[in-house]
């Protein structure tokens, strides 16, 4: 089945970020979204460890280890950046000051529940800021492959893995489609043009509502 690359999913998510938006990108895959800001728009990126307005990684050898992001990676400062302590940082998160948070997922349920922090009781549990980031941003979006590596749906009726947050996700960008979560249901907005609704439904773990026209999900090679 044809599908979008991770870069293409990140590109699509970036198109919905407005000029001047304050944005938190989860560690890992979501960080790619920053690379695909449309020309003429500038978002301000927030990182949990107390920095607004960071830019790309510095060249190897010129890292300053007091200047890192939540993934402990070295970053640079953009004009207009600001530092603050951790309580202020999470006040920005929970206090509805961020416009968008974009996160990864193990599972997203049709009721908006998200599982993205734990695959079960084995090993050392670690949550970081995941449970905070799902609350407070005006939009909480997920970017993810549509199915797991084994081909199982990641968009499900109810999450089976430990929850990160309840009823928190508003939009999902997948390798096949763009889907909103409204009133506890998956609402299909865009799908790959070559993909039938039946085939998309077959790899989705809960019913897709199609209340109106479904736009073609067309993404350049990036």
């Amino acid at each position, binding site marked *: 089945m044809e599908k979008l690359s991770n870069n293409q999913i990140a590109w699509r998510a970036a198109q919905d970020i407005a000029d001047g938006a304050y944005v938190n990108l989860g560690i890992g895959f979501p960080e790619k979204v920053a690379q695909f800001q449309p020309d003429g728009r500038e978002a301000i990126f927030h*990182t*949990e*460890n*107390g*920095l607004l307005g960071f830019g790309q990684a510095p060249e190897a050898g010129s*890292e*300053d*280890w*007091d*200047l*890192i992001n939540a993934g*402990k990676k070295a970053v640079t400062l953009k004009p207009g950046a600001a*530092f*603050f*302590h*951790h*309580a202020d*940082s*999470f006040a920005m*998160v*929970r206090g509805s000051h961020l416009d968008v948070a974009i996160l990864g997922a193990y599972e997203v349920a049709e009721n908006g*529940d998200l599982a993205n922090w*734990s695959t079960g009781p084995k*090993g*050392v*549990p*670690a*949550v*970081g*800021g*995941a*449970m*905070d980031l799902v*609350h*407070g941003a005006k939009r909480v979006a997920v970017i993810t492959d549509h199915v797991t590596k084994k081909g199982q749906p990641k968009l499900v009726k109810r999450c089976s893995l*430990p*929850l*990160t*947050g*309840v009823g928190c996700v508003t939009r999902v960008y997948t390798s096949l489609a763009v889907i909103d979560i409204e009133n506890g249901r998956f609402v299909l907005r865009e799908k790959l043009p070559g993909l039938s609704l039946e085939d998309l439904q077959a790899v989705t773990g809960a019913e897709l509502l199609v209340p109106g026209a479904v736009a073609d999900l067309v993404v350049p090679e990036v």
Partner: protein
Amino acid sequence: MDKTVSDLATAVAGIEDGMTVMIGGFGGSGSPIELIHALIDRYRETGHPKDLVVINNNAGNGHVGLAALIEAGMVHKLICSFPRSADPVVFTEMYLAGGIELELVPQGTLAERIRAGGAGIPAFYTPSSYGTDLAKDKPVAEFDGRMYVQERWLKADVALVKADTADTFGNLTYRMAARNFNPLMCMAASEAIVQASRIVDAGGIDPEVVVTPGIFVQKVVEVADPLQEEDLNRANAAYSLEA
């Protein structure tokens, strides 16, 4: 008034067995490596302090700083949000062997619990963790149609903190993102012990740029050119008991 102490050993001399110790930093950024190593030195010489409860965002990386403190066997419980790192072997092995307790706290909740401890707020409600395993057995309440989890304050006997500039009154500035948990921990500990890259006379910091007012700080020790955990790990450094 002068809160300056002469050396690192003097700065950590009052930390006793069983104390709760907040340690600033997020990963290596803002981590008071020299204060931690001074505490390990004391343990090596005297067998104390041990059975510490440590509060930090992480669980150490490699074999220096917080990881070395854990590796030395001085910590019986860790309260943190993310006990993983590039090299988390010390904590991971000890935890899986049952040698250390872990209280896992969402990062924003951890920060706010510390802030609350410093601000005299015994409990508060947050949306974070509602409906998840980490909210088990915690009181919940509805406010304006949404559900929230009650969380308790966190306080400590001592905080180990890294600052950039301190003055003799204990007013502090920080360097870039090394601020993170440090200002909160100064507030929440009975005794905030601060290592600063430079100490200036009172008046040497513009009051407009003070981040932590000196009222939250009890001891200041100068550590010029402080170590960075990331640099130490890239050099495969280890601050072990046998060192």
